């Protein structure tokens, strides 16, 4: 049970249970229709195998938990926030999609802080990086589901961008840029990521 309590996952087991319920007409052992995930690195609650037993008139459908070994342990297990547990404090950016995708829903929104366990600053930084990643088009499968007959009012121009701080519709063009001492600069990136580790000599250039 201790090993099992370490290994948790929600969507695999729920998806498995739902598929198990729909196939009650099949007599033989129902194998859970779970997409191929290598169980070595993933910490799961316990993917269940649906077993159907028929004793005369009573049919017992049971979800038997498959024992899966635990994944790699974080280098700093005593910290509260997952980023601090894995010592990734100032080391991630909008390009680290593998990290960011762990904190988002399937339609691209952020998961609540009380669920993920992130501290406030890291939650905000991850939210900012997720926003920038969405605007850069790095998360193509996490778009919100639109109804089938949805037709956009005006066709969106397909323009490549990266490190966008502000939302596309909210920004106005800078018609008068001003002289050198009063120049209206264009913002790139976000000041929340100012303390990120930089391996080069050049400083972070936020105002272009």
């Amino acid at each position: 049970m201790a090993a099992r309590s370490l290994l948790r996952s929600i969507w695999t087991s729920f998806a498995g249970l739902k598929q198990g319920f729909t196939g009650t007409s099949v007599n033989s052992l129902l194998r859970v229709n779970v997409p191929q995930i290598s169980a070595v690195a993933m910490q799961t609650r316990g993917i269940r195998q649906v077993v159907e037993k028929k004793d005369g008139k009573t049919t017992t459908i049971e979800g038997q938990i498959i024992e899966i070994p635990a994944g790699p342990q974080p280098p700093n297990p005593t910290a509260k926030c997952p980023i601090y547990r894995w010592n990734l404090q100032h080391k991630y950016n909008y390009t680290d999609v593998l990290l960011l995708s762990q904190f988002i829903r399937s339609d691209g929104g952020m998961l609540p802080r009380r669920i993920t366990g992130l501290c406030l600053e890291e939650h905000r930084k991850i939210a900012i990086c997720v926003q920038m990643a969405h605007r850069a088009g790095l998360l193509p499968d996490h778009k919100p589901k639109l109804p089938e007959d949805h037709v956009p009012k005006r066709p969106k121009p397909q323009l490549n961008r990266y490190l966008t701080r502000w939302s596309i519709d909210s920004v106005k063009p800078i018609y008068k840029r001003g002289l050198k001492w009063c120049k209206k600069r264009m913002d790139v990136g976000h000041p929340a990521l100012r303390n990120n580790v930089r391996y080069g000599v050049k400083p972070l250039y936020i105002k272009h």
Partner: protein
Amino acid sequence: MSSFSRSAQQWATFARSWFLIDARMQPPGKIATMCSVRLQGKHKPIYHALSDCGDHVVVINTKHIAFSGNKWEQKVYSSHTGFPGGFKQVTAAQLHLKDPKAIVRLAVYGMLPRNLHRRTMMQRLHIFPEDELPDDIRANLTEELPQPREIPRKLSEYTQEEIDAFPRLWIPPEDYKMK
């Protein structure tokens, strides 16, 4: 090359080369600096402003250029036709939709020295919005320059093994559904 004969070495030093730059997902400013350096001939040790030592540069895929920040909406390109009421201001997005070559062309034009050589250097710059090149230019190309910006990988481009190899940072609680 030291193995060349004197005449061959002389020819190789003063020949005009053709460079290729792929501007896909690249910031136009960085592309323009690379272009302007090579159009002036400043990448050569034999550079002199009067000796017309600039090379040709071919830029492809300018339609897929990527601006950092919100420059597509904020950056404004202004021009005046000379007639009263002829001051036109267009955002980068609008200009790019109208003419996909204009942004790179204007960027390079602004980075070249402001003298009479600038027009000749602009004639040696060849910009193409997509991959297709005319055959005579393709035959002339000598070198492809590396792209200034590393293109980040999308989540769909990662293999399932790489996604699995990345450790899970947090464990969702048992009753939490919806992910």
